[in-house]
């Protein structure tokens, strides 16, 4: 393989296409959004160019602080739950025979093909009192009478975890398939029960992957704006919901843009922070 750095402009050609796509569809829209975030709203109209931090100042209130804290907390909780289920699941999955692994992976990819709207309404039906899962539990004899589990925080969490779970597994899967199975066996021959070996050999050896997965799911959950509206009450709405609300229903583009920029900056800061942590500890890593 050729490892020398590119020398002529022609050498950069292979990355020109992705670079242009990234520029046109991410950098330029983001720049426009940053610009709009310092514009001024025109009452009853749209917005006009200006340079003001008033939009940013507006969410330095307890209300937006609470919404931001709730959004970050919800995203963190979704990530944690996804890892809690996803790590044992993926570990078991990689221990299966190849053929069975493929079936599971295709099923998970199937979930990805569902739109957020379908997932939202499916869960709101499943958790409803009239047609939901509780009827099944009543029929089996586990419950007295059917209950409504939506709207509510648990419903929002369930929907988001369901949606993020395939991503969790897909990010964990390559690392877990590459994991040397003899690490676990070595721990066992050294006097460690299987559960303990998993906790203090497999998990630490995988900590970079776990952190990366946490960040990806966290950012994914931070951007969710449909499920909190379908499955939650207003107090379960995230910052993304408010962005949508401001942009579409209140026609306050500058304020929506400011919140979106803030959300992106918060996400990037988190990614940077975790990269700094892994970079420092990475020397001894896998």
């Amino acid at each position, binding site marked *: 393989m050729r490892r020398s750095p590119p020398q002529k402009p022609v050498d950069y050609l292979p990355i020109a296409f992705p670079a242009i796509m990234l520029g046109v569809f991410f950098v330029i829209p983001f720049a426009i959004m940053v610009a709009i975030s310092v514009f001024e709203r025109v009452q009853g109209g749209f917005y006009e160019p200006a340079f003001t931090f008033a939009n940013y100042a507006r969410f330095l209130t307890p209300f937006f602080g609470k919404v931001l804290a709730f959004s970050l907390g919800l995203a963190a909780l979704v990530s944690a739950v996804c890892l809690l289920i996803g790590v044992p699941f993926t570990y078991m999955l990689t221990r299966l025979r190849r053929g069975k692994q493929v079936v599971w992976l295709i099923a998970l990819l199937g979930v990805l093909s569902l739109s957020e709207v379908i997932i939202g309404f499916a869960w709101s039906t499943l958790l409803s009192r009239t047609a939901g899962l509780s009827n099944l539990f009543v029929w089996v004899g586990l419950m007295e009478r059917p209950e409504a589990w939506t709207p509510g925080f648990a419903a929002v969490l369930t929907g988001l975890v369901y949606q993020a779970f395939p991503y969790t597994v897909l990010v964990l899967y390559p690392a877990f398939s590459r994991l040397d199975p*003899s690490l676990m066996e070595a721990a066992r*021959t050294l006097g460690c029960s299987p559960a303990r070996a998993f906790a203090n050999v497999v998990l630490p050896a995988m900590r970079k992957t776990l952190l990366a997965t946490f960040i990806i799911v966290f950012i994914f959950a931070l951007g969710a704006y449909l499920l909190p509206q379908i499955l939650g009450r207003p107090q379960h709405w995230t910052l993304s919901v408010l962005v949508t609300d401001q942009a579409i229903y209140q026609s306050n583009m500058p304020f929506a843009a400011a919140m979106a920029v803030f959300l992106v900056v918060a996400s990037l800061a988190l990614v940077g922070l975790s990269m700094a942590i892994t970079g420092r500890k990475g020397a001894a890593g896998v």
Partner: protein
Amino acid sequence: MSGLELVDITKRFGTVTAVDDITLTVADGTFVCLLGPSGCGKTTLLRMIAGLEDPTSGDIRLQGERLNDTPAHRRNLGMVFQSLALFPHLNVGENIAYPLRIRGGSPASCEARVRELLDMVQLPGVEQRAITQLSGGQRQRVAIARALAVSPQLFLLDEPLSALDAKLRETMQMELRQLQQRLGITTIVVTHDQREAMTMSDQIVVMSKGRVEQMATPIEAYRKPASPFVADFLGQANLIRVKRADNGASFDGGFIPGLEVPAGAESLVSVRPEDVIVTSSGNGPVQADVVFVREMGANIEIYLDAGQERIVALAAPKSHGDFQVGARVSLTLPPDACVVFGAEGAH
């Protein structure tokens, strides 16, 4: 009964029988090599001893006590894996101390023991290094030190030296043998390298297709192979089909005077290349043509065609000039150097 006993051990994976009814005994303090080609069941056998696989049937006993139902982590053994399986998130000292910490050793006692173990594997002062900072040979030593940290009853190694280059491998073989003799620990090594097995072991267990072909001391297995497979697998062997004749045995390319073989069907005879005597002149009992000469430095390998049989002989380098490709030479196969197998391959 002391030592490790395997009684009628069979292991099946689905329809595949990996280990087929093996019974063998490893005496205390001996060094045993399980030797065989890949897929012969040697690693599966070792993993069953370690408790990483359950035998389909049969008993594993250590000092007379049945071990089958004891999980791996309670078997008090040390194992070195082919991949070494050093924990990437721990440094050298933490890796070696791991089994001690699991058993609740105090930090001070662990530290002292780690120092002792690193001295033992001749790698002092590397406690704080990351695993990635070590060379292949050093990692090998760390893996050995970690496996021996709790002074286990059994020391198991699965192709431990396969990742090292040839020179280092030979050094490590000798060191491993010396270490084992110093500690007097019962050791079982899986290898496919017959030189490695010859170098290190008290006993060699030659395996093929899930069965034990022969268990013997290295020199006995080499001199008196129990089957054509063992003869061929341990070093080089000329396997020749012979028939009984007057005062000896005859084969397609000639005659072996004085060799007794069973009457009737053909027998298989094994002769080591170094036992074949090649002379350029005279009318010996076997006439052969030189087809290829391989100079190996210390000696030369001469490939000969005697009738339909291909015979390899080893000769001293000074005789090289006498043997040119295409020359006709005469061979002597000394009868006392021949091992005769019946039609079935047994004695």
